[in-house]
């Protein structure tokens, strides 16, 4: 595992991006360091550069200057192929919806993450099955084509896939926008608890400020200069977010023994 406890899960240094030939839009973020298990909420309205930031964090686009480290490993600037390789095994991604390849079965969709990461984990199938079970996907659903699932089920399968390689980072882009309020809360809790079990840091992107309380820290797209600020408004109903820091750290130190 790359997410060694002594390294931050994600580190941004002098993050600067602008589209080639365009001066109007820039993204500048002061130095950010996320400890392992410290979840981050990125809040911003559409058009604020969320998508671009996400593509940068995933290594699809190249940073203009500055550095990104994931689990202590240099991620940007690196060549596209190297970024792809690191993304495959160190970053899990969950989209708004339509996360799954419709013609593959549920299980194959989850295993897809392992295929492109190289045969890093030989027991990928067993891991995929235990993840699916933990996420409430019964065995009867595993061989079903993904297109037959409900939206909520699809999003849970997406979590399983994102966590299959025990990545340092899980980047979720508005994953709850297609869910109703009840499902939304259940989904976020499930996402965070599974991420904690795997020692994975979640970066959750949304326009919805109401969701911020689930996470330990926040980055505002309209105030990037402020950097990552901790959230103190802890809801008593959500023990997960209160315990995030401590639970996560203990999880990862003992994470080697317990498969997630």
């Amino acid at each position, binding site marked *: 595992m790359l997410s060694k406890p002594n390294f931050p899960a994600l580190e941004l240094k002098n993050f600067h991006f602008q589209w080639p030939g365009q001066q109007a839009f820039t993204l500048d973020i002061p130095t950010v360091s996320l400890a392992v298990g410290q979840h981050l909420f990125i809040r911003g309205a559409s058009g604020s550069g969320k*998508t671009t930031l*996400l*593509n940068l964090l*995933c290594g*699809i*686009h190249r940073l203009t200057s500055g550095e990104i480290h994931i689990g202590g490993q240099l991620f940007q600037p690196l060549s*596209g*192929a190297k970024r*792809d*390789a690191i*993304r*495959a*095994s160190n970053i899990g*991604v969950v*989209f*708004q919806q*339509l*996360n*799954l*390849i*419709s*013609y*593959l079965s549920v299980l194959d969709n989850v295993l*897809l*993450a392992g*295929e*492109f*990461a190289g045969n890093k984990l030989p027991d990928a199938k067993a891991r995929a099955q235990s993840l699916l079970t933990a996420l409430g996907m019964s065995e009867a659903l595993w061989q079903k084509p993904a297109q037959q699932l409900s939206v909520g089920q699809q999003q849970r399968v997406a979590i399983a*896939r994102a966590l299959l390689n025990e990545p340092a980072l899980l980047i979720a*882009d508005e994953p709850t926008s297609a869910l109703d309020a009840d499902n939304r809360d259940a989904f976020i809790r499930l996402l965070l608890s599974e991420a904690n079990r795997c020692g994975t840091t979640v970066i959750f992107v949304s326009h919805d400020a109401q969701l911020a309380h689930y996470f330990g820290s926040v980055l505002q797209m309209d105030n990037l200069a402020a950097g990552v600020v901790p959230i103190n408004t802890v809801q008593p109903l959500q023990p997960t977010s209160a315990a995030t820091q401590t639970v996560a750290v203990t999880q990862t130190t003992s994470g080697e023994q317990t498969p997630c």
Partner: protein
Amino acid sequence: MLIRLARQSLWNRRGTALMTLLSLVISIALLLGIDHLRLEAKRSFTSTVSGTDLIVGARSGQLNLLLYSVFRLGNATNNISWQHYQQINKHPQVKWSIPLALGDSHRGFRVIGTNDDYFRFFRYGQQQQLEFAEGQAFADVYQTVLGAAVADKLGYQLGEQIILSHGVGAVSFSQHKDQPFTVVGILAPTGTPVDQSVHVSLAGIEAIHRGWQGGAPALGRQPKLSDAQLAELQPKVITGFMLGLKSKVATFALQRQINEFKAEPLTAILPGAALAELWQMLSMVENLLLLVTLLVLIAALIGMMTTLLAAMKERQREMAILRAVGARPWQLFWLIELEVLSLTLLSIGGALMTLTAALWLAQPLLSSQYGLVISIWPWHGHTGIVLSVLTGVSLVMGAIPSYLTYRQSVAQGLVIKL
């Protein structure tokens, strides 16, 4: 793993994939089929006569002579007198000769007046001799030996009586009704025009034309000939003859001598050279066919490209997911190319099977109707190369949607605007 993805993705779009496959199968089968027929026809064509060094007829072009003497097509320009034939026959270089007297027919099949030497010396294909399926060669004036296709098509058995007609049309108004011939032999199939021929003796030809003048029947009844008289019948003219020489080296010298024959204007041709010239004329048609087929194939490949390009939009999401789980852009490129490759290989397999089945079904018809004996397995030495080139071309054409997918996946990133 890419292979499995490509397979399942294709299966997911099996409706359009099947149509693409179908158009490719048809056009590849067309290409291979025309190529196959061309080669088989050429093989069958050039094997119609072998072992004959010279064919001699009245002065005419070499193609005309070849067509009427070997392919039973068209008519002779003139006859050769029996006397001059005998004179050339005595040339020291001549090993054997086969006289041919043409001009009559039986229900559309050409009648050939000849002698025993025809069955002894005529060779086709790989120096193969004529063989009898039933019966034997004619020994009497009013006996005939049928080619395999004649007997098969008209349903003739040994012992049957047939009437010859004057002229070579399928319908003749002038029949040699009073002098029927008895079938005494049926030849084994050869896949050459021999199958389409009715063979009688020169004496038989002479007998039915006895008393004729200027190509018109004799007036009044001709008295029946006694057997003794019949046996003495000698032809006055023949249409042409084939020569086998003792030494191939003498061929050109004898050809020149015959062409410069003083007593009668004659033409001697080398069958091999004449066949090659004839084939060259036909090859223009064949090349045209091949060109049309190639265009059909290109149209099918463009069709495949179009369906792949059309699918790109609906597959954006699929590509973004693959990128998100760490697929490199070049892997997406190869994912599309693999689909192209599978479609092409499947089409080639399908085309070979379709074509073999079609040839298997068509074979009896082709051999009975056109005397064309073709093999049902459409594979030749260069077929592998043709198919490899075809696969290469389809991959090059498939590279266009593949590259666009690659570009799109690099530019668009993971977030697709819905």
